[in-house]
């Protein structure tokens, strides 16, 4: 078991990072090439100020028509995305890993806080799941792909919390956690989660199009 853990947290971690980084670069570069070949009439309007205007406005909760229309989702998605970044990058245990693996020392969340944020993120995932099960306009368009990415995201949090609270065999839980984290990382470029790569670009395009051509708000 310990050997397996060493393998998972060693070579496998590098492989996961490889998938994530090379996969992301590949997806972005090939998408840009396709856009250049086929979407010239859209690319022509890209504008940095209008992109930023749009991104900033959508970063403010309840500032947009979309955010106003569904308060529960808005609160859940903001807590989820912020919580995800905080935990994935700044959790105490992860900060240690940044240091040992890459030699980068970053500030880390106080233990209790990191734990609390992890629970909040799990709760947000529960809200996402509730919407997919109970709200007809979400349920109707939900496909296995959407469940897959939601589970993919929730797994590292669930296993991480279990490991941290020493529920179940610690080594097994930690190994599972690391596996889940790596799976998530590796699959981001190839699932719905690829929106982490593309969402800023689609937002920027809409912002540019509305700002530069339509002279109207896109929020």
């Amino acid at each position, binding site marked *: 078991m310990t050997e397996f853990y060493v393998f998972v947290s060693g070579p496998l971690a590098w492989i996961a990072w490889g998938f994530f980084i090379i996969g992301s670069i590949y997806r972005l570069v090939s998408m840009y090439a396709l856009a250049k070949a086929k979407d010239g009439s859209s690319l022509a309007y890209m504008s940095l100020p209008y992109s930023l205007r749009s991104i900033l406005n959508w970063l403010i909760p309840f500032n947009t028509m979309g955010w106003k229309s569904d308060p529960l989702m808005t609160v859940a998605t903001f807590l989820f995305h912020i919580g995800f970044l905080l935990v994935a990058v700044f959790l105490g245990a992860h900060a240690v890993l940044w240091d040992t693996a890459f030699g980068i020392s970053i500030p880390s969340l106080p233990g209790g806080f990191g734990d609390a944020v992890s629970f909040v993120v799990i709760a947000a995932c529960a809200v996402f799941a509730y919407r997919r099960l109970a709200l007809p*306009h979400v349920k109707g*368009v939900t496909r296995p792909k959407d469940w897959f990415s939601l589970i993919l995201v929730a797994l590292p949090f669930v296993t991480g919390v279990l490991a941290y609270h020493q529920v179940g065999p610690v080594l097994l839980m930690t190994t599972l956690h690391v596996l889940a984290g790596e799976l998530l990382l590796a699959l981001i470029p190839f699932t719905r989660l690829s929106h982490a790569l593309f969402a800023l670009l689609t937002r920027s395009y809409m912002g540019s199009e509305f700002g530069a051509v339509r*002279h109207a708000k896109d929020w």
Partner: protein
Amino acid sequence: MSRIADRKVADPGLANGVASLTPEKIEKVVNQVLKGETGAKLKVYQETCMRCGLCSQGCHFYMSHDFDPSYSPVNKATETMYELMNKKGKVTPDQIYLMAQMAFTECNLCKRCAHYCPIGIDTGYIMSMVRRICYMLDVVPQYIRDTSHSHASTMNQMWVKDDEWIDSLQWQEDEARDEFPDLRIPLDKEGADVYYSVIAPEPKFRTQLIYQAAAIMHAAGVDYTMPSEPGWDNSDMCMFVGDYENMGRLKRAHFESAQKLRVKRIVMGECGHAFRSVYDMGNRWLGYKNSPVPIVHAIEFYWELIQQGKIKITHKYEKPVTIQDPCNVMRGRGLMDKLREVVHFLCEEVVEMIPNREHNYCCCAGGGVINCGPPFKNTRMEGNRIKAEQLKATGVHDVVIPCHNCHGGLEDIIGYYDLGMHGKFIGDIIYELMEKPEL
């Protein structure tokens, strides 16, 4: 959740088109469009749409059908384009019928949902590409198809013959000279400041709008002209049908007729979709980032005339009015402040609809939906109850509507929901209030 299959509407254009389809032909055409004409934009939209449903409340169809998810933007994209993409075009002719009905008649391409989608997905664009595929498959509602045929063969929307166009202008000029003795409608005047362009329904059955525009130009002392040759019609149903080749032909003819006359700019009448065709879709198809001749919409033009003190009115319109914000010039061109300044200049009291400005609800006629004709009138009436509620809540009887499509759409809704209201163009009000010569 209702299903599109349960609300199938009989239409000869759709039925005849589907009758000659084979699965092989569908597959070939779908992939030809997907590979040849769409690119990263569509691919990213399909992939990054999180199926979160936040766009739903943006759509008047969804709001008007008691939150029936079948009408949400993401569902419409899922049942049409995303299905075509996932199946790589392996769908049945009957599915194409339903997809065409959805794309042509249950989406106005109004882009209101863009204000609701956090990712920035343009459902209007997605649905217009579905229409493009249906057009390539020759599955198009009969009425709008006829209109686009008119465009293709006469270069105008209403089968208006070249001489009839000139006759209509001269007729209006003649009529107007009773009221304004030295009024002219100058044809083909080279180098004029303004090239005034209209949509073909004006000479066909709304000639009083040409009369009024001529009266306003005359009173304001504008150096203007109207073209006598094809290219005069700025409307463009080919754009909504998905016939982009002819959309391009029409826009080229329009721009070139203005260039030939070496006018300073084009002023277009109170129409929304025509404006979309010159700043958004037609220009891009032709490879112009912006239109090659400066173009302003009537709202902006009247605003300028008012700023320059060239419009003199005897009094303000006394009855309270509300304002319809047409999607293509609000969400499309940000003319909401100018529109308000114009209306407040003309009218004593304005009661706003809520929501308004770029967040307005579409009239449900736009995007060519009204042009799909009588078979789909109920789609528009039931699909825009929210607009009726919005109108009713203002408590006024007059609606200022600076768009032809919105006029048609709102008049129908006002009738269907028995609202006892009446629509007016800005030109109607200016004409009514302006100082006229004593005779």
